[in-house]
């Protein structure tokens, strides 16, 4: 394996390790639950992306063909991280705020954490 490729893989691995560490350090450092949502959903996802990029370069240099598994994992993680963050924020809001503490929803329907979804029998 040429030196430049090794250097590239090593740099990607070190950067991704630091990002993963920063994500979890933010999880114990920040002082509010909603603030704590920021660190793992952004930094840790980027860290895992770096690990998968390093693994793609490694197996491309080793075997000569592009492996698509890592790309699938990366796409899946990047798609699901915002969804889980949204769900956790909704769970936190549903447990810790009352309906009259929130500003009114601008649409025809209320907040999704208190009201049923539009189109269901119990809506409104």
């Amino acid at each position, binding site marked *: 394996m040429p030196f430049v490729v090794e250097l590239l893989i090593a740099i990607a691995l070190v950067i991704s390790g630091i990002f993963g560490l920063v994500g*979890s350090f933010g999880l114990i450092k920040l002082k509010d639950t909603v603030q704590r949502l920021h660190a*793992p959903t952004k930094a840790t996802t980027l860290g895992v992306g770096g690990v998968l990029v390093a693994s793609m370069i490694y197996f491309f240099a080793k075997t000569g063909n592009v492996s698509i*598994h890592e790309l699938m994992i990366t796409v899946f*993680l990047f798609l699901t991280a915002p969804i889980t963050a949204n769900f956790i924020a909704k769970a936190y809001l549903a447990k810790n705020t009352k309906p009259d503490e929130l500003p009114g929803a601008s649409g025809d329907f209320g907040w999704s954490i208190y009201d049923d979804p539009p189109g269901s029998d119990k809506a409104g």
Partner: protein
Amino acid sequence: MIEYALLFAAGCYGIALLMDLWRIVLGPDSADRILALDTMVINVIALLVLYGVWRGTEVYFEAAMLIAMVGFVSTVAYCRYILRGDIIE
């Protein structure tokens, strides 16, 4: 050089797992614990991929893909249980 970088990254993710565990033990709200569990799943995916690179096999990517899917579904299930009191309505 790759070996040392792999060791460094694995050490970082190991310490990150311990920090997530600390947040699970400490976390005042259940949203904190769900968030820490989700972060643990993502860190374990990274560790699995690192182990696969270290051993030089591509076997571990299927396991990483499966753990990613199961982790996402379990996080959504926890949150839905807190939100609605029911997972599948």
